[in-house]
């Protein structure tokens, strides 16, 4: 390989490679440092995550269009944008991690490298169009997440969440592998380009086989994004996992899974009207169920983590509308929404993570009563996240929701858009519960009186607020560059 080619190759690999190598270095650091010294690991990890954020940004800035990793990795704008999201989610989660972990007495250095591995897995998933690599990225991500979900071994809920996540996740992995096998059997290819051209030409070794394979792949990712009826793990795992991990997982996994779905569906399976109409129908059915059931279930929760978990299910439903729109209409909107979602949902979880102190009902809504009296800025930040999740302008959530809405209407799915509207009305009710509690209730418990907001947590919250607001007021900063993102995803007419 000539020198320049190698450099290009490396450049394209950087977003994937950097967190991987950095994680490895951190992992070496874990046994070398005594437990008391492991806080240094945190500083190193934060620095690394910052760089992980900057790497894709700089690549976006300097222009991309290159391949790497034995031509398996694509370094296209979609991948880079998603990389930014993963690293941002990781960064914000990392910022509150030590505070949280010290409080639950589970400060373990291993979590930092595992976070980096998870970021690596996500980056791999979205940066490739080879099903093999997608599978491996997914597993790198999942395995790391299984572990850090159950990291607080002394808490039953953490371990239980890990167990549920693991069992169901492995189940869905099996489905995914079987799906890949069927698609491979039907097209003799693992790469989406090859699959796509086979789909276009119709030269497949068994159409039902291809479709069944695609169905299983869809199921596997519907599981990851938490679409109904594959959502059952979401609330349990989100509630059980250490909150910073929940934050990271909620934003990162979802973004990664949607990135993959965008690529798989639009690059691989949109060449034939028969095929694409089938998956559009399937995803529409799932989207309707997801939006409605997610919101209805969130409505009846009085634990914040659980409520946000169901809300994330609902948001997955909204995002699916962007997924089934034509790629040039939907892709940019999905990515934008994901970015906003990263900010607001991670922000919200970060705020929640400041609250947890006991195992039983740490995140109960009543803890938030009267937060405004005690911690006005924190309450306002949380209020902004909630309003953004509701879709109130001029916050990012509004822009995201509106563009998705628009995409649905533009692609002719008016019925789905109406369902989305109805669902959003239901959604308003429970997000408001939080605001009502924070602003309109007297402080009930002593939790908020001795609430600590250490500087890193404040930085994380500020970052999330800034992102949410800026993306609402000037989304063109992102939407502009994103408007051409679809060109890199779908290689087919």
């Amino acid at each position, binding site marked *: 390989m000539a020198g320049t080619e190698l450099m290009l190759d490396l450049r394209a690999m950087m977003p994937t490679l950097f967190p991987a190598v950095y994680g490895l270095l951190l992992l070496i650091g874990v046994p070398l440092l005594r437990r008391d010294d492991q806080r240094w690991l945190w500083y190193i990890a934060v620095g690394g995550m910052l760089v992980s954020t900057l790497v894709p940004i700089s690549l976006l800035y300097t222009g991309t269009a290159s391949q790497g990793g034995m031509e398996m990795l694509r370094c296209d704008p979609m991948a880079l944008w998603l990389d930014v999201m993963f690293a941002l989610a990781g960064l914000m989660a990392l910022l509150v991690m030590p505070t949280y972990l010290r409080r639950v007495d589970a400060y373990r250095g291993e979590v930092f490298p595992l976070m980096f591995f998870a970021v690596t897995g996500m980056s791999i998933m979205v940066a490739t169009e080879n099903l093999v690599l997608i*599978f*491996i990225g997914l597993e790198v991500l999942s395995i790391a997440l299984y572990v850090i979900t159950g990291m607080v071994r002394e808490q039953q809920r953490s371990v239980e969440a890990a167990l549920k996540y693991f069992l169901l996740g492995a189940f869905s992995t*099996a*489905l995914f592998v079987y799906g890949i096998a069927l698609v491979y*059997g039907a097209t003799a290819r693992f790469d989406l380009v090859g699959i796509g051209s086979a789909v276009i030409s119709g030269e497949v070794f068994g159409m039902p086989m291809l479709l069944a394979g695609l169905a299983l792949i869809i199921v596997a990712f519907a599981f990851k994004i938490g679409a109904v009826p594959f959502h059952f793990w979401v609330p349990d795992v989100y*509630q*059980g996992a250490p909150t910073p991990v929940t934050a990271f997982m909620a934003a990162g996994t979802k973004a990664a899974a949607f990135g993959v779905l965008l690529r798989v569906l639009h690059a691989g399976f949109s060449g034939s009207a028969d095929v694409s109409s089938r998956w559009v129908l399937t995803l529409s059915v799932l989207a309707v169920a997801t939006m409605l059931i997610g919101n209805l279930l969130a409505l009846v929760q009085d634990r914040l983590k659980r409520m946000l978990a169901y809300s994330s299910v609902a948001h997955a439903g909204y995002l699916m509308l962007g997924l089934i729109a034509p790629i040039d209409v939907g892709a940019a909107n999905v990515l934008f929404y994901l970015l906003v979602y990263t900010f607001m949902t991670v922000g919200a979880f970060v705020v929640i993570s400041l609250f947890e102190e006991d195992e039983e009902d740490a995140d109960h809504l009543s803890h938030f009563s009267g937060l405004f009296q005690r911690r006005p800025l924190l309450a306002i930040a949380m209020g902004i996240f909630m309003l953004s999740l509701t879709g109130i302008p001029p916050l990012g959530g509004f822009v995201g929701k509106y563009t998705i809405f628009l995409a649905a209407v533009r692609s002719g799915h008016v019925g789905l858009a109406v369902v989305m509207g109805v669902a959003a009305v239901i959604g308003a009710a429970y997000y408001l519960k939080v605001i009502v509690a924070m602003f309109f209730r007297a402080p009930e418990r002593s939790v908020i009186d001795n609430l600590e907001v250490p500087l890193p947590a404040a930085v994380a919250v500020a970052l999330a607020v800034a992102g949410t607001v800026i993306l609402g007021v000037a989304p063109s900063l992102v939407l502009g560059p994103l408007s051409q993102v679809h060109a890199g995803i779908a290689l087919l007419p």
Partner: protein
Amino acid sequence: MTDAPSAALLLSSLLFAVGAFGVLTRRGAITILMCIEIMLNSANLALISVSRALPGNGGSGLVDGQVMALFVLAIAAAEAAVGLAIVIALFRLKGSTDIDLARLLKW
């Protein structure tokens, strides 16, 4: 539809369903893990059997299906390791691996 690969493919779907049935009905976490292994294996069997039948280099049989199957194998090993560790952690807390007892998180 008249050869060993196809027959193995069909057998794999049967095994896949058997494994799924196990996941749906059993309570022991490790048993479920084993049922998932059956499912993964059947997926691997499907991969190998289709790759055997696909046109390859100078005859039928395409190698990259096997490569994928190998990766699946490695990943299955990793998953098993993590899964067992989680089960052990749960066992330490509850003294049992019965997943029906692990229902602190619900509703």
